[in-house]
């Protein structure tokens, strides 16, 4: 069997997307922790263009960019499919993954970096999530369907766990049961999926990691006044 390696960084939700997909398909892999402040020769060799993680290495060939890796995993190990068969449904799944890139990520970024405008940015972020809840999730339990998670659930996984830590550090809640009931329920259900539940970074460490990042931002903001 060909060797599978995953280069990662422990707090990264992008890395966990790949971990979940590999585990859901029962693929054995070696995990290699990278120090992004001191990138290894291996990382620079396997991802010379973007020099970031996650990077999947299969049979000596590397694949970078988490969403590209997810498609690769889906095609290489077709058991336990994570994308719909129907081409239009598949296109919808890819649409939502792209929505995550274009709308969710900048909203989280703005919300995390908002010093003094936390409430405003949290509201903007909520507006984005309302679209996801209404048009993406609808009445389903998961984005992948009522019984099964798919690539969209995996791609949105950061909302189910990482976001809670970020909310605690920023001090303003975004994903609340009162304003986003179905998406909030999705987050709780997603965390209970065995492969997800057993593969999450330590909450205490993650909280400390985000606290540290935000303190740096606050310091930078106050020193530039």
């Amino acid at each position, binding site marked *: 069997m060909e060797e599978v390696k995953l280069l990662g960084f422990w707090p990264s939700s992008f890395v966990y997307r790949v971990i979940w997909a590999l585990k859901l398909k029962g693929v054995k892999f070696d995990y290699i922790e990278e120090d992004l402040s001191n990138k290894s020769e291996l990382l620079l060799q396997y991802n010379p263009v973007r020099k970031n993680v996650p990077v999947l290495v299969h049979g000596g060939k590397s694949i970078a*960019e988490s969403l*590209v890796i997810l498609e*690769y995993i889906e095609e290489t190990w077709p058991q336990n499919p994570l994308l719909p068969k129907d*081409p239009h449904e*598949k296109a919808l799944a890819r649409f939502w993954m792209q*929505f995550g890139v274009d709308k969710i990520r900048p909203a989280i970024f703005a919300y995390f970096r908002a010093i003094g405008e936390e409430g405003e940015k949290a509201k903007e972020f909520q507006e984005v999530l309302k679209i996801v809840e209404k048009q993406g999730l609808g009445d389903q339990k998961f984005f992948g369907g009522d019984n099964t998670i798919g690539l969209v659930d995996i791609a949105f996984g950061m909302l189910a766990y990482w976001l809670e830590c970020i909310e605690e550090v920023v001090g303003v809640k975004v994903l609340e049961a009162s304003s986003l009931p179905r998406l909030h329920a999705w987050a709780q259900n997603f965390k209970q999926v065995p492969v997800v539940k057993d593969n999450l970074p330590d909450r205490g460490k993650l909280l400390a990691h985000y606290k540290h990042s935000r303190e740096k931002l606050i310091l930078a903001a106050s020193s530039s006044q």
Partner: protein
Amino acid sequence: MEEVKLFGAWPSPYGYRVIWALELKGVKYEYIEEDLSNKSDLLLQYNPIHKKIPVLVHNGKPISESHVILEYIEETWPGNPLLPSLEDPHGRASARFWTKFIDDKALPFAMLLMTDGEELEKAAKEVREILKILEEQGLGEKDFFGGNEIGLADLAMGLIASSFGVIEELAGVKVLNGDEFPGLCNWVKKFKENPAIKKNLPDPDQMFVYYKQKREMLINSRAALSYK
């Protein structure tokens, strides 16, 4: 009979990607030109979330986001493939990686059109770095990003062949030159020679007029917004 409609807005490179894919595969489609300053009810119905083009409508079902549309076209009309076969998942991943790469780097290219002075210099420098990566890591020794034939990544890069020259002319910079980028320049030539592409390239003179107007408008509005 299958009904295929494409909503686009000339000269959007994202729209052209889809046109090229359909033309390369010989898919019959109806093209509907949208006025983005006055979006049609149909567009708003088919793409309510982003309200953007391109949108492909196949048998009444809409698909939006250009790279998502390209994947849909590839799967629905497998003749004249634009991705390596499923026997080569790494080749497929490579095409997707480079498509994402150029999409993530859209801003510096846009800045070439939207800025002047120091900001323009900075944008030109960034674009040069991007082209260097494409030349050395993307193309390498190959004729096309897809290998021997045009593939999805080539279509994604298509703006470099179709509209980049006009943008350079308007900005007064020459980044894509044969000395620094022989591979890319060869790629531009071969890309535009493909019969299906050749018949579907935006007219350079019309583009010049269009982008000149856009550039003036954008530079003026940025100047009005900036604080000295």
